[in-house]
């Protein structure tokens, strides 16, 4: 009797396991189409990048005689050296680093300070600025393309670093403030009151108490601002004339126009890889933060 129950219990256990396995298999087969659809899209992205990398490791002659699909033979890193030195990619790279770091630093400091005051101090202009920024986020900026260019020329800012920094510091302001104002509003006001009791002045309250607390929000907008400036093609195209000041985005476009007529494709690809590596590193290190920050702005707005 007792063995029988044990057997049937065993049986039951076996059956349950089998069913679970079948369920798992069923589920896998049911999600197979989605794996295929998503997988092929993901593969196209990875493949495009791997292909670019492989071309950057080939000699110009190899690329032309053996076609786009061949493996690098011989593998060479000369393209990187050549691109960095002869094709000015090194200079473009340093320019990009300079614009992105100073641009981002300025943008987040200005945005955080402005957002803090608008979030905490009750004054009429504050609401006005808030709604003005909301409105400007939707505003089609193309209308002022030519007038902006002429105005910057009148101010003597064309072809200077300043014009780019003004673009980056001010241009990113509406979006960054919009996110940071919401962020500051969620922080408890008691801390500021306590700091005031302890004899802190306004600057200390902001810089020593509130700014550190806002760090998650500031870091998020910092990442986005950095990536936007790094990728920016438009402002340098309009406002810069001297190729020595070009960032990578514009420099590579210039190189690509010239490369069409020569056998410089692998060098150009080496330049492209140099351009995207920082972006890929940032992305894979901070991907969760980036996708989160993306939705923060879009869905609320």
């Amino acid at each position, binding site marked *: 009797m007792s063995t029988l129950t044990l057997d049937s219990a065993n049986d039951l256990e076996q059956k349950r396991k089998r069913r679970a396995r079948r369920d798992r298999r069923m589920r896998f087969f049911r999600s197979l189409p989605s794996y295929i659809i998503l997988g092929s899209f993901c593969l196209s992205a990875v493949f495009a990048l791997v292909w670019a990398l492989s071309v950057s490791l080939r000699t110009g002659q190899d690329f032309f005689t053996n076609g786009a*699909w061949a493996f690098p033979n011989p593998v060479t890193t000369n393209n990187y050296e050549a691109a960095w030195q002869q094709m000015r990619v090194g200079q473009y790279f340093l320019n990009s680093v300079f614009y992105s770091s100073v641009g981002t630093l300025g943008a987040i400091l200005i945005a955080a300070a402005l957002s803090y005051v608008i979030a905490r101090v009750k004054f009429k202009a504050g609401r006005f600025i808030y709604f003005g920024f909301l409105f400007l986020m939707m505003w*089609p900026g193309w209308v*002022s393309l*030519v007038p902006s260019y002429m105005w910057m020329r009148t101010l003597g800012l064309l072809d200077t670093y300043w014009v780019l920094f003004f673009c980056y510091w*001010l241009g990113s302001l509406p979006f960054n403030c919009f996110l940071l104002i919401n962020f500051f509003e969620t922080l408890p006001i008691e801390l500021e009151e306590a700091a005031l009791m302890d004899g802190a002045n306004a600057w200390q309250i902001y810089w020593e108490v509130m700014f550190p607390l806002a760090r998650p929000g500031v870091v998020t907008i910092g990442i986005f601002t950095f*990536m936007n400036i790094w990728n920016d093609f438009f402002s340098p195209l309009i406002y810069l004339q001297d190729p020595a000041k070009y960032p990578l985005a514009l420099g590579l476009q210039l190189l690509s126009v010239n490369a069409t007529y020569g056998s410089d494709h692998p060098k150009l690809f080496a330049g492209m890889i140099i351009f995207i590596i920082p972006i890929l590193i940032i992305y894979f290190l901070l991907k969760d933060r980036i996708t989160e920050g993306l939705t923060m702005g879009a869905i609320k707005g």
Partner: protein
Amino acid sequence: MLQKELRKLILIFVVPPILAWMILNIYPMVSAFYWAMTDYDGVTTSSQVFTGIENYRLLMNDTRWWDSMGNTFIMGAGLIVTILPISLLFAVLITNTVKGQGFFKTFVYLPSILPIVITALLWVFILDPTVGLLGGAVDGLGARDQLKELLGVNNLNFIGNPNLARWTVIFVSLWAAVGGYTIYFMAGLSRIPTELYDAAKMDGAQGWPMFWQITFPLLYPVVQTITLLLIINSLQNFAFIYVLSGGTPGSATQVMSTYIYRTAFTDHRFGYATALGTIMMMAVLVFTVTTRQLSRREVIQY
């Protein structure tokens, strides 16, 4: 107390950036309406004369401008009608996969973080009929003639052929942008409470009916926001087209933004380009507001 103390910050934290903003951004925006009524060529001051609505009369007869506007709307519409269902599909698929959600999310979004210049250049070379991946693949399969016949074209130059160029721009823009919109949709989907699905399952709902009866209505506000974003972005697309095709061949992919850029910086017609800019602004605003009104519908609370 605190208010009084913090008020001191206005002078250093608010006044300088807003002042700079007014001087560097708002002033040119306003002055646009003056420049639009001049014949300024960007160099000679003698051309800086007030011509009233002359520019607007000119643009009425500027067929290239109207073609650019047409292209903007055609390519914008093409992008919107493909990107919405595809990104929604991707979002639903990723949300419902058992394993690998994080993986798919990371790699679906990957094309969207690439710099526009890189995406455009990559595709220029991928689609190149002689040295590119596509040309190589077609030749490898010995299918060059068949593909030409299938597409009804006499060369496989996807960017240089007027019949193909528009489709190519739409396709590449789609490839580059779909990941971002997928992430938006995923965020929207994750906010739908799972209890609703459980309840619907109890009632025997599954698959499509469940999607149309529950997911879609609850996702509608997100769809609305995303559509607006898409319209604003696709009507003002510039860098992509500038690098990919430069508006060529002929003016098959010329859009409002590239045409304005060209008019100003290649043809040196600053006054006229500004006038075109004001029209583009009106077009974008009208289109955005109309879509907003048309898509308005009762928001379902849950």
